[in-house]
């Protein structure tokens, strides 16, 4: 992504369509020339080297690539980079401030809401969107909001607890382990 040097591929066999995009990623304006077919997930990972956004499946099911697009959670493997032009993207790297972790990050660690960590960034961003909209969700609300994110390790119970922990922290309550991290509906 350096402007000093960008090797161009030998344009044999027809010119490659290129578009300039300007995306505000985690508060910083990023400008790049991309092929329209470049997926937002790859724009973030390969392009901007923000590798916290993971890609898990090809069919828009797993949610590991979840980012916030203008504040709403989307699956960045099913959005084109060119579609993010002029919009704001938040990735896991944008959750913590310079000084401190986001309560969701604390919650996931405190409640053992992750194991291999691969689905975690997507989970936390989907959860952030929920808490932005509903600061005091029920367990059912949390499970519903995360129903587009797959986790293979934890069995979700601790993920739900982690989000409820964060909700309490964000409301200035002292978060204690949500005891009823139990069953859905």
């Amino acid at each position, binding site marked *: 992504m350096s402007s000093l040097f960008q090797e161009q*591929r*030998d*344009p*044999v*066999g027809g010119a490659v369509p290129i578009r300039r995009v300007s995306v505000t990623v985690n508060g910083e304006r990023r400008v790049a020339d991309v*092929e329209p077919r470049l997926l937002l997930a790859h724009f973030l*990972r*390969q392009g901007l*080297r*923000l*590798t*916290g956004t*993971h890609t*898990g*499946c*090809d*069919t828009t099911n*797993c949610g*590991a690539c979840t980012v916030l697009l203008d504040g709403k959670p989307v699956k960045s493997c099913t959005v084109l980079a060119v579609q993010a032009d002029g919009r704001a993207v938040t990735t*896991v790297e944008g*959750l*913590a401030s310079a000084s401190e*972790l986001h309560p969701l*990050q604390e919650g*996931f*660690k*405190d409640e*053992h809401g*992750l*194991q*291999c*960590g*691969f*689905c*975690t*960034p997507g989970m*936390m961003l989907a959860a952030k969107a929920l808490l932005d909209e509903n600061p005091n969700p029920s367990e059912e609300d*949390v*499970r*519903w909001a*995360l*129903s*587009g*994110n*797959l*986790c*293979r*390790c*934890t*069995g*979700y*119970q*601790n*993920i739900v607890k982690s989000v409820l922990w964060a909700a309490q922290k964000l409301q200035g309550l002292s978060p204690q382990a949500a005891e*009823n*991290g*139990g*069953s*859905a*509906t």
Partner: protein
Amino acid sequence: MTALDEIKIGGLGASRKRVEDNRFIRGKGNYTDDIVLPGMLHMEILRSPLAHARIKSIDTSKAWDIPGVHLVLTGEMMATRNLAWMPTLSYDTQAVLATDKVRFQGQEVACVIADDPYVARDGCEAIHVEYEPLPAIVNPTQAVAPDAPIIRDDKTNQADNVIYDWEVGDKEGTDRAFAEADVISKLQLHYPRSHPSPIECCASIADFNRATSKLTVYMTTQAPHIIRAAVAMVAELPEHMIRIVSPDIGGGFGNKVPVYPGYVCSILASILLERPVKWIEDKTGNLISTGFARDVYLTGELALRKDGKVLGVRMHTDADHGAFFSDAQPSKFKIGLMHSTFACYDIPVAHLTARGTYTNKAPGGVAYRCSFRVTEAMFFQERMMQAAANDLGMDQAAFRRMNFVRDDQFPHRTPFGFLLDSGQYAKCLDVGLEAVGYQDFQRQKEEAKARGRLLGIGISTMTEPLGAGNSREYDILGIKMFDSAELRVHMTGKALLRTGAKTQGQGHETTWAQIVAHELGIPAEDVTVEEGDTDTAPFGMGTYASRSTPVAGAAVAMVSRKIRAKARKLAAHLLEVSEEDVEWELGRFYVRSAPDRGVSIQECAMAAYSNMPDGMEPGLEGNAYYDPPNLTWPFACYIVTVEVDPETGVWDVLNVVAVDDCGVRINPMIVEGQIMGGLTEAYAMSNMQFITFDAEGNCVGSNYMDYLLPTAWETPGYELHEVVTPCPHHPIGAKGVGECAAVGGPAAFVNAVMDALRDTGVRNIDMPVLPDRVWEAIQFGRDVSGAPPVKTDE
């Protein structure tokens, strides 16, 4: 001078928060796909659309013409390097890139290496392969049919599709037991093909440096040292010139144990191009070509006495291994540890026969969150136990209890020859029944029935062998199943620990440090744990089969004790007393006669570098190789209650109770995390998760639209309980636990649904117990098979 509080320093039993989380919650993990090397190229694989076909021609010319394409690999080119085929972990051969035939849908046919993965995929699309379709075989029955096409015609002396016929146990004795039986209970079922399906697929970055002739491979492997050995053998490279690095892994569950063609191709591509080559597998590739699990058919019989005593067990299993016999399992037994079945019951005699067949399906049976067919063994056991209880008209809990191995019978030898070390089976069952409110639920069930509602309760109790080896019986390609740890205590008392295991989410970086803290009193936070780099880690067999704590964990304890022994000498020197007069308490040596005269382990560490006695070798570090005397045998009792909607066949989980006895728990928080994860896979397998095939051999379940994993929404909540029976032969009394719930859980869910349907007289519904199967069972009062091919209207 009071001793250290072990919990405070993050020792044994502390629910210590995980150190690895600090990077994961910030998105700063380092997974294989996160690694970028200078000049790196990208590889994509072209896969066979057909399950069985002869390759007539492969035309790659159009792919070569695409700007940005650097290399197109085909089987022909692999063959010139003698790499078209590779050995499997089960002493068979597997095609790396197909030359003669394709033998399953999704088999690797060609690779394209290009500047970026998009162009590499363009290249794959430009390759034209001409196939001559052949009939596809999708189950063992078709495989042994008289007119069945021979799948492995590449092998001389392979005249049919049978891989092995194997047996274990006492046939005559078992026949006698059945002759004397009052009741014989028979059950036939299929444990469907499944896939571990970690969210992160397989990946590798091969980096061959011509100048140093060193090959470095960053890859998603649960067993880096095994891979190094395999690469040395397959690619015929000197082992010391191979470095395997396994960075963070996005879940493994057994999927990332074997060697896959993609790894080999990326390595050859890097050697040919002298540039780093990255291969990131897509989800479909992962699901249709890498290590599947299960796919075993059971015919099981129990010889029973009227009073409920089990007199004998007779089992036959038919395993569908796919196109190549490449099970990733280290036992000398053809069907893995299938004969660990019924281990928790005191059964006089048993006999097991097993047949393995080739089919036109993906190869590579892996121990998906289990120890080599133990999941099937325990599922068969607990389904047969429930059917038998029903046949006898006995309460399923009482029936189990009366057949358990009693606490006073340990050590206990099973009829198949395994030696059990310890357990309190009846106690675990009682804790579970109490927690679920067994008697009360039976009442609710009757009341509900009166109102046309179907409630059911399912129990699964089992002990499973975890932590291969011992090395007498377990090896991979001849390499014995031990493990290792290396500990360096720096002069300030901080430490670096390395093991031959490889975490994939189990939290080794957290728990290994807790074992060191327990043995040496060095606070866990002062211990760095490193794994996964074969240039730095001591040799180990990797992490799978719940073997890390039983084997590598034991090695950590043993190396810590070696360090403590040397520290004792240093302490004696510092305290100016003889070694015999030095006593140890957590973190501190003191003089027996004067307890307040002592030195901390940290002071000993400093002395090891600054003030050692004459003639003592400086430094405070060591390593230990641990060859376990036996497997560990955790016990578990899982109880599930469900309600079935008789009109739609949909069933909901009401309650799940888990009682696990995995011996001493190093980090209870992490142990419970493992159990909840396992229970969820059990729920998934019983409810929705399976891979099947149609008559043409098309894989149904090749992507996350069809291969369903449960979400937070339907996944039930869990109530966990514990019983602790320390393992007598493990240094800290721990047993394996990572898989217990995934192994023992499925039967609990299925038994619950079958219990709800008991009045229909239906004996079995194959997993996953889908609504349509439940409906069919209720509607027509017959067993429902889920065996492939998928039923159609024709």
